[in-house]
């Protein structure tokens, strides 16, 4: 396992949507889920997580509800809204196209004369 990788600008929102799409999560849970999915290789600034969550909630892509955490404490759980699901789908498509193109460029070999 190498150095943790920093997040590419603008991808945090997409990752949060994906994490929440797998089941309701509280803020800390989002962090754990992303860590678990990446084998701890992705470094996410904890301070930037909540502003992102609030932004998404404000845009109506996720919804929040108070519930009980695993160890019976009150926590705020976020779930994906239908609008969020749609948004995630289009973001995923766009991201896949984009990363494919970037990979294609980076794999380019010098042309043989």
């Amino acid at each position, binding site marked *: 396992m190498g150095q943790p990788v920093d997040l590419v600008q603008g991808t945090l929102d997409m990752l949060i949507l994906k994490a929440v799409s797998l089941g309701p999560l*509280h803020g800390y849970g989002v962090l754990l889920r992303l860590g678990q999915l990446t084998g701890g290789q992705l470094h996410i600034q904890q301070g930037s997580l909540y*502003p992102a969550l609030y*932004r998404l909630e*404000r845009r109506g892509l996720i919804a929040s509800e108070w519930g009980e955490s695993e160890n019976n404490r009150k926590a705020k759980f976020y779930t994906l809204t239908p609008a969020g699901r749609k948004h995630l789908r289009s973001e995923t498509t766009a991201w896949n196209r984009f990363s494919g193109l970037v990979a294609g460029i980076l794999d380019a070999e010098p042309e043989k004369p």
Partner: protein
Amino acid sequence: MKPFRRRQFETEMDAELRFHISARTDDLIRDGLPQEEAERLARAEFGGVECTKEERRRSWGLHHLDDLRADLRLTLRMLGRNRGFAAVAILSLALGIGANTAIFGLVDAVMLRALPVHDPDSLVFLQAVGWDGPNGGPPYPCFEWLRDKTTSFEGVAAFSRSAMELAIDGRREQVSGVWVSGNLYSLLGVRPLIGRVLSAADDRSVGVGGPDGPGAVISHTYWERRFGRDPAVVGRSIRIFDHAVVIVGVLPAEGMSPDPGRPIDIAVPMTLSDPVFLQTMDRQIELTLLRERLVTTLSMAFGGLAPLLACVGLYGTLAYTVARRTHELGIRIALGATRTQAMWLVLQGLTVSVIGIAIGVPAVLALGRIIRGLLFGVEPLDPLALGATAVLLVTFTIVAGLGPARRAGALDPMVALRAE
């Protein structure tokens, strides 16, 4: 956002962030860190809690509210320090409101409001028909001829204001009265509150009156003031210029005379007055009305001037404030205040006008009695006039504040900071 919802917003946000840090602490302890170290690390990893909260408030647009509150506090403090300025601005606004409302009431009564008759549009005033009578108007017989021969009008009626000497139960008093032709009220469509209006029959013969003998009608105001709303007033005999007259009805105060804005206590058929003075629509009335119109126009000009002066005063105060706060504004902008925030200086003017209105309206209410006396019985507390004035002044204030505010927004921090 309502205060209690704001409090809920804050507690929920606080609870959520605290949960995060304590959950992280628990995990770190499970990883083998001592409690204190785990707490410290969890906090450090999270970063600025306040910063996150502020971010969230911002994403909900709450910072506008917070900024507004802070600006308002600063404004009030500044006003407290500039008591003289604040007092002048607030007083001029309060006066502006008072004067404007009062004058609007007068203008409304004299010029804007249609006469309370059934068809004000078809009403025509005639003056100086034929030869001048003793008071400058046409002689009474001339009116009679006109009344009986006219085909162009539905009817012709006459009225002439006069102070009248009444004797009620042997006690004499002077009231403001109007001599009317018997058909005046039926022609104008005025309805009696009790009893009946005067009719054409009431002035059929000079000095005698109608079928019930000489009759007169009184206004609702006079009925209230002099007779305590006693319904038995109808049929009561009083003396007018030492002639016995019977009160036949009570009319709404505003229907007593087509001469607006002047209270009339009693109306008596013209044929009961001294025949020498009998006349129609005399020029005197038109002249008096002319004078009143002039007074009204002048008052209206003054009324317009009052808020204008208030506006100029406000502009001065605001411009002065911007000039004095140039240095501070420069620092604010240099530290990242947006130009819009600097423009919130308009707020200062608004605060002044709100305070001015808050003082002006109760003052107008308190002065209502006096104003009413000055305004010939016009109701000065017309809520429409009061509201219109308040809205007008707030608009004026915003306009007055815009110039200085724009200047504040356009400040170059470099120049501003050097301008010490």
